[in-house]
C-alpha cells in the first residue's frame, strides 16, 4: 500500500521541529520557560510523522481567515 504523508492533507497545518536558535528567540519573546508552551504528545500521529522526540518544540503554521497565517508552538511530551 502506498504510504501517504499526513501533512499532505489540506486540513493538517504545517508542522516542523524548531531549531534551537529559533526556539530561544520565541521563549524570550514571550519570556517563558519551555514547560509553559502548549503540549503535544510524542504518540501524536503528526509528531511521529515529523520524527519529533520528547523535549522538541514543534512549530505549527496555520492558515487563518483573518490573520493570513498564524504560528503556534507545542512542546513534545510523553
Amino acid at each position, binding site marked *: 500500500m502506498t504510504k501517504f504523508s499526513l501533512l499532505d492533507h489540506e486540513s493538517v497545518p504545517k508542522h516542523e521541529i524548531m531549531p534551537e536558535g529559533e526556539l530561544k528567540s520565541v521563549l524570550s519573546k*514571550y*519570556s*517563558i*520557560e519551555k514547560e*509553559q508552551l502548549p503540549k503535544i504528545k510524542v504518540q501524536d500521529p503528526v509528531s511521529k510523522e515529523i520524527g519529533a522526540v520528547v523535549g522538541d518544540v514543534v512549530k505549527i503554521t496555520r492558515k487563518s481567515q*483573518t*490573520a493570513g497565517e*498564524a504560528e*503556534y508552538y507545542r512542546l513534545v511530551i510523553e
Partner: protein
Amino acid sequence: MANVPPIPKRISSIKFGLLSPKEIRKMSSTPIITADTYDDDGFPIDMGLMDTRLGVIDPGLRCKTCSGRAGECPGHFGHIELVAPVVHVGFNKVIRKLLRATCRKCSRILLEPAQKQHYLDQLIGIEEIGHMPDDMINEAYKEASKVKVCPYCNEEQLDIKFEKPTEYLENGEKLTPTEIRDRFENIPDEDIKVVGMDPKNARPEWMILTVLPVPPVTVRPSITLESGQRSEDDLTHKLVDIIRINQRFQENREAGAPQLIIEDLWELLQYHVTTFFDNSVSGIPPARHRSGRPLKTLSQRLKGKEGRFRGSLSGKRVNFSARTVISPDPNLSINEVGVPMPIARILTMPCVVTPRNIEQLKIYVRNGEDVHPGANYVLRQDGRRIKVTNVNKDDLAEKLEFGWTVERQLKDGDIVLFNRQPSLHKMSIMAHSVKVLPNKTFRLNPAVCPPYNADFDGDEMNMHALQTEESRAEAKILMQVQENILSPRFGGPIIGGIHDHISGLFLLTRFENHILANDAYDMLRKSDIKELPSPAGYDPDGKPYWTGKQIFSQILPKNLNTQFSAQVCSHCDTCKKEECPNDAYVVIRDGELIKGTIDEAAIGAFKGKVQDRIIKEIGPEAGARFIDNMTMLAVRAIMRTGLSFGIADEDIPKEARIQINEVLGKAEDAVQNLIKSYQNKELEPLPGRTLDETIEMSIMQKLGKARDETGNIADSHMGLENPAVIMARSGARGSILNLTQMAACVGQQAVRGERIRRGYGGRTLPHFQKGDLGSDAHGFVKASYKSGLNPTEYFFHAIGGREGLVDTAVRTSQSGYLQRRLVNALQDLEVQYDLTVRDTRGVLVQFKYGEDGINPTKSDFSKPDTIHRIVRSVASREVA
C-alpha cells in the same frame, strides 16, 4: 511578562476509605458517656455531648484539647462506644452485595481460584490504564452470587434478602449486625480486592459500626434564644437519643433482660444511628422534633438544593441587593434604571465625611430614615455603627465629624449593578445609574431588554448597590450600559430598537410622509432637539410640512455617513442602490437620511447599522444618546398613526381562497400520483436513498412547495398597509411564515423532520386505511389558523407542537450544562498586555488572542471591513 508566577502545586491524587474503629478512637478526644449537655450553671458537662474537649462555641471558654478560644479552635471529634454493632445505612448496597458474594461459613469469595486470579489480573490492567473498574467489579459480584455451593468448604449458600432500611434475612432468618460483622472479618484480604475494595483503607467489617464518631460541637452549635433558653442543634438531639438507648441497652443486658427486650433495644439503637446519618431513608418514619418537624441530620445537611454543596458552596447570598418585578419605561435613558422608592430607602451608599460634603451629609442625617434622601446609619471612626432614628437624627447630625461614614440612602445618579438570571454573558450584569421612582417595580428602557433577554411578563431582576469608590468607578467605566452596546459575540450592537421602535420608525420614514409643525414638535419633544430644519414643502393651504426622513434625521449625529440595504430589501439580482423602487436602500449623508426606510437593519437590536456606526465612529456616549432619542421618537411616531392588529387583518378575498384551494388540490393530486407510481413500482429512487425514503421526501417537498405557494397568494393580497405585513417586513415582530399559517395554510406537521407516522399499526389514527400514504393521514394541515383546523389536523398539530416543547426543555438543560463546563474550563484564562492568552500558571494557550489579536467588539459584525471603510472615507466615494 517580566516575572512569571511559579507553577503552583497540584493535587496528584485523593484517596477515599472507611474509618476503622481503631482510627475513630484514635482521632477522638474523649469518649462520650452521658446524654446530658450542660450542668445547672450552664457549664458543659465532662464526657457529655458539649464537653469542652470537643471544642468550644461559647466566647470566654477555652478548648481542653487545643486550648484555643471559640473561633480559633476548629473542633475535635469524640466517640461513643456502641453496646452492640449496628449497620451503617450508607453502605447497605455494598453490604448486600458482599453477603451474597461470600461464603456463609468460611467467608471466602465464591469464585474458583482461577476465576479469582483472572479478575485480580484484570484489575491491575484497568488500574494501569487509569480506567474505572466498576464494570469489572459488578461482573465479579454477579458471578460470585450465582455460585450455590462454596468451592472451598462445600457449604451450601442460602438466599440473602434485604429489607428496608437495614435488615438482612438469610432464608427468612434475620442476620444480626454481629453475625454480618463476623462474616466480613473473616474475608481474606485478597478476596476483598476482587470486589474493588482496598483492605488497607476499607475493610468490609468497618461498614458495621461498633464505635460512632461524635462530630465536634462546632459542627452542631447550640443557639441561645432571646428568652435565654438554650436550643440544641438537631444533630445533638439525635446523639442524645443514641446515648440514651445505648445506656438502656447496656443496663438491660447486664441485668440479663429477656432476649425479646434486648432485640427491641438493638433495633431502636439501629434506628437512631440510621436516622443520625440519614433521616430520609425509605422504610422508616423520619425522626421528629417535639414540634413534629423532621430532624435535619447529616445527609439532609448535604443533599439537595439548600444542602451544603448546592446551597452553601455553589450558591451565595449578598447584602446591599434588591429584587423585584421589572416593567418598561421608554422615557428613561438606557443608562438608567428606575428604582422604587421603598428600595431606595433601604439600600445605602457609604459616604466618608469630609469638609467638602459635611453640610450635605448633615442634611441627609437630619432627614433620617423616613424622608428621602436620608441616612440609615452613621459609622463613627472607632467602627461603632449607630442607627439613625427619628429620636437621634438631629443629635447625630450635629455630632458628625470628619472621618465618620454616613450610610445615605440611594438617590438619583448612583451607580448600581443590574442583573437578570440566567447570567449567560457579560451583558447580563450591567451598571445603570439610579432614578428613584414611585411604585414598586424596577423600570428600564425596553431597548436594553435584548442583552438581559428580559420581557415584562413577570420577569424579576436583581440590583446591587456598590459599596466602594473603586467598584463604582470600575462599574461606570467598564460595565455601564453604553459601554456594552456592542457585543463581543458578533461585533455589532446588542442594544437597539425592538417591536414598536421598529414599526414606528418604519411608518415614519417610509416614502414621503407629510408632517405638520405640531406633529413634528410633538414627536421630537422628549429629545434635546429644539429646532426644525427648513420645511420640505408647503401644503396647498400654505402650511409648511416636513418629511418623516427629516424628522428622523434630527436625532442623527451631524457627521454621520453610511449606506446599507434595509431589512425590506427584496434582494433583487442587481441592486439599484439609491434608485431602489422600494426605498430599501438607506443613505445617510452628514447626519441626514437622504434615501431609504429605517427598519430593523438600521436600528434593531442585533442588526442596527446606525447605532453600530455611531458608536464605532463617534463614541458610546453618542450611541447611547441616539438610542435614547430613537426610542422616544419611535414611540411617539407610532402613536401618531397607531398600529393595531386583529383577526380581520388575516382576511383574504374569496378569489384568493379559491386560488389557495386550487393549489392545495393540485398538490394533493400530485401526491396521489406519486403514491400510485410508488405502488406500481415505477418510482425512481433518488441517488443514495431507498424507495421508501424517496417517496417520503418527494411528498414532503411537494407539500412544502404548495404551502409556500399558498403563502405567496395570501401575501399578494395583503399590501404593505397591512399591519402584520408591516411588522414582518420591517423585522419588528413575526415573519411571513407566521402570516402564511394564519391566512393561507398551516402546512406539514413534522416529528424529527419527518411526516407523522406513529400511532396504530400501519396508520396514524384508526379511521385511516392501513398503509395510507396520503397527505391528510400523515399530518398535512390544509387549513389556516384563521379558518380553523379540523379534528385530525388539530391532533397532528398538537403532536408537532409537543415536539417543539420537549426540544426546548431538553436543549436548555443540555446547553446549560455545556456552558457551565466551558466556563469552568476557561474562567481563569486571561488576555495579557502582549496579546497572549495565558492561564494562572502562566502557561500559554494562544500566542495571539484569536490568532489575529482582534477585539471582536471592535470588528464590523465579525467581518474585516475597517480597511475598506477607511479607504472609502479617504477617497470619499465607493472603491472596488
